[in-house]
C-alpha cells in the first residue's frame, strides 16, 4: 500500500470522512498514540492514566459518531433493540460526528489533543478530582455549587491560567468560533452593524429595502444559531461538560484577551 500523505489539516478530515484506508490507518497508528501519550504526560497516578487511555479511545471513536443510550420518543411502545438488549431506552448511533467540528483553523493533531485534554479536565473537575489530582488548582464542582466555567468567569486574568484551564478556554474559544461560522453571514453583518457600530435598525432596513421587523428577526435567528451551535459544539466535544450559556458569556466578557489567545498580563 502506498504511503499516506498526511497534511494535518482539512484534507485529512475529508479523507477520514470518505473512508480513505490510508487516512484511517494513520489515525489509528499515528494520531491515536500521539493523543494518548500527550494526555498521559499530564497524569500523575494510575486511575488518571487509565481514564486518559479510555478518553483517547473515545475521542477516536467519536470522530465517526457516538453510540448513545437515549429514551426514544416512542420508547414505551417500541420493542427493545435486539442489538443492545436494554429495556429502558435504545442504543443508537449519534450522527453528529466529532470530525465535522474540525474547521481547519489549526493543525488536526492540535485540535484533537485539545478535545482529549478538555475531556480529561472535565474528569479531573468531577467529584473524584481530590483523589486524582490533589495538587491541581483546576476550578471544580464542589460544595459551593460552582463549576469551572463560573470560576473562570470570576477569576482574575492577572497571573494567567494553568495548562488545564488553557485547554478548557481553548475549547470554549473554538466553540464560539464554530457558532459564528454556523450563523447566517447576513445575520452576523446586521448584528455587527447594529450592536458594534451603533447603526439604528431602521437605517439598516432602509439600505436593504426590507421591513425593520425582518432585520430584527434575522438578528434574533443569528444569535440563536450562535448560541445553539456553540453549546452543541461543546457537548459534542465533551459529553460530560455541563455548560450554561450565561457562564460562557461571562467568560467572554471578562476575559476576551484570554479567548483571543493573548497574554493576559499584557492586557
Amino acid at each position, binding site marked *: 500500500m502506498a504511503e499516506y500523505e498526511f497534511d494535518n489539516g482539512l484534507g485529512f478530515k475529508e479523507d477520514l470522512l470518505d473512508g480513505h484506508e490510508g487516512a484511517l490507518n494513520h489515525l489509528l497508528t499515528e494520531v491515536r498514540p500521539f493523543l494518548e501519550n500527550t494526555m498521559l504526560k499530564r497524569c500523575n497516578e494510575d486511575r488518571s492514566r487509565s481514564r486518559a487511555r479510555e478518553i483517547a479511545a473515545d475521542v477516536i471513536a467519536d470522530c465517526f459518531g457516538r453510540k448513545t443510550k437515549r429514551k426514544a420518543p416512542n420508547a414505551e411502545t417500541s420493542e427493545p433493540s435486539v442489538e443492545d438488549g436494554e429495556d429502558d431506552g435504545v442504543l443508537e448511533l449519534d450522527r453528529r460526528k466529532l470530525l465535522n467540528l474540525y474547521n481547519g483553523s489549526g493543525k488536526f493533531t492540535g485540535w484533537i489533543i485539545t478535545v482529549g485534554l478538555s475531556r480529561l479536565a472535565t474528569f479531573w473537575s468531577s467529584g473524584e478530582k481530590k483523589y486524582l489530582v490533589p495538587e491541581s488548582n483546576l476550578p471544580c464542582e464542589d460544595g459551593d455549587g460552582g463549576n469551572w466555567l463560573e470560576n473562570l468567569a470570576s477569576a482574575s486574568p492577572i497571573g494567567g491560567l494553568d495548562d488545564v484551564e488553557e485547554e478548557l478556554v481553548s475549547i470554549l474559544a473554538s466553540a464560539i468560533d464554530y457558532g459564528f461560522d454556523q450563523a447566517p453571514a447576513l445575520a452576523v453583518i446586521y448584528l455587527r*452593524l447594529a*450592536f458594534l*457600530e451603533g447603526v439604528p435598525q431602521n437605517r439598516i432596513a432602509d439600505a436593504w429595502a426590507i421591513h425593520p421587523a425582518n432585520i430584527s428577526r434575522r438578528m434574533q435567528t443569528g444569535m440563536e444559531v450562535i448560541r445553539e451551535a456553540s453549546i452543541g459544539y461543546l457537548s459534542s466535544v465533551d459529553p460530560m461538560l455541563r455548560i450554561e450559556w450565561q457562564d460562557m458569556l461571562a467568560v467572554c466578557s471578562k476575559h476576551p484577551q484570554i479567548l483571543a489567545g493573548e497574554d493576559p498580563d499584557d492586557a
Partner: protein
Amino acid sequence: MLFPIIFKHEYSLKMEKEFKALAGFVETQKPEVEGHAGRPLTEDEVSLIRTVADGQASPQDLKKVESLLDERPSAITLMAKFLKESI
C-alpha cells in the same frame, strides 16, 4: 399596547449585551480574509457600499456587498459610517 414594546426593547438590549460579550473575540478572530489584509477598499467597492447605504442597490449589488461585508471588517465600518451620515 405598551407592554409588548417594552418587552421587545428589553429583549433587544439582552441580545445586544450577549453579542457585545462575544464581540471582542469575534473582532480578533475574524480579521480581513487572507489576501485582503492591509489592502484598502477599491473605489468600486467604496462606491458599491455607498450605493447600498443610500438604499439604491439592485439585488445583484446587495449580493456583492454582503460578500464584501462578510469578508472585510473594514467594509462594515465604512458601511456604518455611510448609514449614520444619512440619518
